[in-house]
C-alpha cells in the first residue's frame, strides 16, 4: 500500500506541470539573471582616458615641474594616444575651464593659485576624479621629495634616484597560502539555491492540505479509507521530498555546470547539504500548513513571503545584510533556514576543514526533525470521528 500511494503521488506531481514549472523555472531564471547582471563586474574594463582642463594663466609657470610630469602622462585634445597615457588635457583660461567642468566635458580642472599652490576643481566624486586627485597628490609628493633629496645632496640628485623616480614599485601581493578569498558574487548563487530548497515549502504545504479534509476534497476521500493516516502521510511525504530533491538537483546542476559557479570540490558534502536542505524545506512547509488554519491562498502567500524574507536576511538582495545581522542579532543567522543552507555551501567552498560545516548541517537536520515531529503531532490531533 505504501508503494502504491508513493507511486501515485509521484505521478500526481509529474502531472501538475505548472507547479513543477514554477519550482524549477524561477530559480533557473533568477540565477541566469544573476550571471548576466554580475558578469559585468567580473569583466576587466579597459582604462578610460580622463579629460582634464589646465588653466594657463600667469601662475602656470610657477609649477613648471608639475606640468612637465603631467604632460608626460597626457596627450592634448585631438592628439593620438601614446602608451602610458592617462589624461587628455586642454590648456585654457579659467572661465573656459569652469564652463567645461560645468558641462561635464572634463572630469576636473587643475589650476595654480596666487600662492603657487596647485589646486583641483571638481564637479562630482567618481572614479575619474579619484584617479585625477591621486595623480596630482603623488606628483606633488614626488616633487617635494626630490626637492628634499636635492637639498640633502647639495643641490644634486643621485643618478639612481632619478631613475627610481619614474618607477612605481608594487609592494603588495595576494597571499598564495590558503584556499580562496571570499567572493563577492558566488554567495548570490548559493542564496538562489537556498531559495529553491525553501520553495519546497509549497510541496510540503500541499502534502498537508491534501490530508486535511477541511481543506481539500481529496483528503475527504483519503480520510474515509481504512489506511492509517500516518502511512498515507509518510508515503506521500516521501513522494513530495523525492520530487523536490529532483528539482533542486536540476537547479544545482544548472548553476554548477551551465553557469559555471564554483562550489569547491567536496561533492559528497554538497550533495548531502542539498538533500538535507530540500527535505528541510518540505518539512517546514508541512509544518506551516498544519499549524495555520487558513485558506490555501494565504498559506501560499505566507510560504512565499517567508521564503523571500529568509533569503533576504541571508543576503540575497544585499550581501551585507548577513553581516549586519551578525553584528546586531547573530541568533537570526543561526536559525534562518536560508542562511543555514547558503552558509553550508559557502563553508564547503571556502574552508578546508569540516568543523564549521558540521555546525550548519547539524542545525539543519535538527530543524528538519523538530518540524517533522511537530507536524506529526499536529496531524495526530486531527482525527475524525465517524460522522
Amino acid at each position, binding site marked *: 500500500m505504501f508503494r502504491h500511494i508513493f507511486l501515485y503521488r509521484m505521478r500526481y506531481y509529474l502531472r501538475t506541470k505548472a507547479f513543477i514549472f514554477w519550482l524549477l*523555472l524561477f530559480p533557473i531564471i533568477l540565477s541566469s539573471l544573476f550571471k548576466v547582471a554580475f558578469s559585468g563586474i567580473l569583466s576587466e574594463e579597459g582604462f578610460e582616458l580622463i579629460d582634464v582642463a589646465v588653466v594657463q594663466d600667469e601662475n602656470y609657470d610657477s609649477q613648471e615641474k608639475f606640468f612637465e610630469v603631467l604632460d608626460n602622462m597626457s596627450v592634448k585634445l585631438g592628439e593620438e594616444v601614446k602608451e602610458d597615457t592617462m589624461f587628455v588635457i586642454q590648456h585654457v583660461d579659467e572661465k573656459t575651464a569652469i564652463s567645461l567642468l*560645468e558641462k561635464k566635458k572634463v572630469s576636473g580642472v587643475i589650476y595654480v593659485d596666487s600662492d603657487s599652490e596647485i*589646486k583641483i576643481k571638481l564637479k562630482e566624486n567618481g572614479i575619474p576624479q579619484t584617479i585625477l586627485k591621486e595623480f596630482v597628490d603623488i606628483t606633488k*609628493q614626488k616633487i617635494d621629495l626630490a626637492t628634499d633629496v636635492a637639498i640633502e645632496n647639495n643641490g644634486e640628485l643621485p643618478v639612481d634616484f632619478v631613475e627610481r623616480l619614474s618607477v612605481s614599485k608594487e*609592494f*603588495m601581493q*595576494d597571499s598564495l597560502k590558503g584556499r580562496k578569498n571570499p567572493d563577492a558574487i558566488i554567495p548570490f548563487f548559493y542564496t538562489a539555491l537556498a531559495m529553491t530548497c525553501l520553495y519546497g515549502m509549497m510541496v510540503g504545504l500541499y502534502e498537508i492540505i491534501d490530508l486535511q479534509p477541511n481543506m481539500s476534497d481529496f483528503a475527504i476521500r483519503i480520510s474515509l479509507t481504512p489506511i492509517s493516516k500516518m502511512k498515507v502521510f509518510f508515503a506521500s511525504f516521501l513522494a513530495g521530498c523525492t520530487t523536490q530533491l529532483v528539482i533542486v538537483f536540476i537547479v544545482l546542476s544548472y548553476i554548477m555546470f551551465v553557469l559555471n559557479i564554483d562550489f569547491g570540490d567536496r561533492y559528497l558534502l554538497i550533495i548531502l547539504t542539498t538533500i538535507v536542505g530540500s527535505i528541510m524545506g518540505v518539512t517546514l512547509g508541512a509544518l506551516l500548513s498544519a499549524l495555520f488554519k487558513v485558506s490555501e491562498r494565504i498559506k501560499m502567500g505566507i510560504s512565499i513571503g517567508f521564503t523571500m524574507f529568509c533569503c533576504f536576511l541571508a543576503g540575497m538582495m544585499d550581501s551585507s*545584510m548577513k553581516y549586519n545581522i*551578525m553584528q546586531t542579532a547573530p541568533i537570526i543567522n543561526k536559525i534562518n533556514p536560508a542562511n543555514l543552507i547558503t552558509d553550508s555551501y559557502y563553508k564547503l567552498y571556502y574552508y578546508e576543514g569540516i568543523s564549521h560545516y558540521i555546525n550548519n548541517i547539524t542545525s539543519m537536520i535538527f530543524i528538519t526533525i523538530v518540524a517533522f515531529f511537530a507536524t506529526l503531532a499536529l496531524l495526530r490531533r486531527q482525527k475524525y470521528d465517524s460522522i
Partner: protein
Amino acid sequence: MTVFKACIKICSRNLGDILIMLGVFIGMSLLFSSYSSDNSKEGYVNANIKVAYIDNDNSILSKGIKTYLKDKVQLKDIVETDEGIQDALFYRIVEYIIIIPEGFLDSFIKGEIKEIEKREVAESFSGIYVSNIINNFMNSLDLYKTGIKNDDMESLLKKAMENVEIKSEVEFLQEVKKEKADLKQQFIFAAYTIMGSIIASVGTLAAIFNNKEIKRRNKISAIRPTSLNLILVLANLCLTIFIWSIIMMFVYLMHGKEMLNYKGGFYVLNSLVFSIDALSIGFFASTFVSSANGRSAIANTVALGSSFLTGVFVPISILGENVRNVARFLPSYWYVDACEKIHSLTSFSLNNSKEIFINMGIQILFALALVSVGLVIARQKSLASNS
C-alpha cells in the same frame, strides 16, 4: 456600480493574501533601508574599512607602517593563525589583512622587494584604497632611501610619513552636499515592493473576470462590454492606488520630514507612475496566466528579476554598461534612474527636472504598450474561444 461593488468584494476577500505579501515586502524594505549605507556607490571609499595587521617582522619598518595606517583605516586585532585569518574574513570581522613577512626590513635595506602579503574579502574600491596607500608610502620611503644614502630608518620613516601627507586642495563647483541617500535607497527598493505586490494583486480581479463561465454570463448581460472593461480598469486602478498609498505611508513613517519638499514630491510622483506601470504588467500577465499560483509566480519572477537587472539591489553603475543596455528595456530601469536623478537635484527648476519628466513619460509609454498588447491578446483569446 454593481460590477464595481463586486470587485471591491473580491478584493476584500483576498485582502489577507495581498496584505501578507505587502507586509513581507515592506518589512524587507524597512530592514534594507535601516542597514544600508551608501557604500556600494561607485568610487566610494570606506575609510572605516576594517583591517588586520599581522607583523611577522617586528622591525622598526613594520611598526612604522602600522603607525602610518593607524588613522587611515580601522585596525583590528584578530587571531593570527591560518584558521583565525580565514574566520576573520569569512565573518567579515576584517575586510583586509596585511601580513608583513619576516625579514622585511632586511630585504628592504638591501634593496630587494619582499612582498607584503594581502588577503581581502573581495576586490573592492576600499581594498584598492588600502593597497594604494601602502604602496605609495613604501615607494616614498624607497625613494628617500635611494636619494639620501646615509639616513637611518627612523628618519626615513619620518620623512616618508610627512611626504605622503602632501595633498592638493580640492574645491567643488557647488557644495556637494553629503546628503544622506536614505530616502533615495528607500524609494529605489520600493520598486521591488511595488512590482511584487501590485502585479500579484491586480491579476486577481482580471483572472476572476476572465473565468469562462463568468465571462459568458457577463457577455449576455445588459452591461456593455466597454463599460465592463472600464469598470474593471477603474477597480484595478483603485486597488493599485490603495497598495501604493500603504507603501507611501510606510515610507512617510520612516522618512517623513525629509519628504516635505520638492524632492519628496518628485519621488512620490515617480512612484505613482511606476505603480501604474506595475499595474499594466500585472494586467498583461493576467491575460495569459489565470491560476493564482501562476500569477504569484510571474509576480515574483518579474519583480525580483527586473529588480536585479535594473539596479534596485546593486547599483547599475557597478553592474556595467552591458547590463545597463539590457535593462533599458525594463520599466523599472527608468524608475530607478529617475530616483537617482531626483537625488542629485540641487535646486528646483523646470530645466533640471526635464530629465525626470522624460523618465516618467517613458514609464507611461511602457504602461500603454503593455496594456495595448494585453488587450490584443485578450481579444484574440476571446475570438478564438468564440470560433
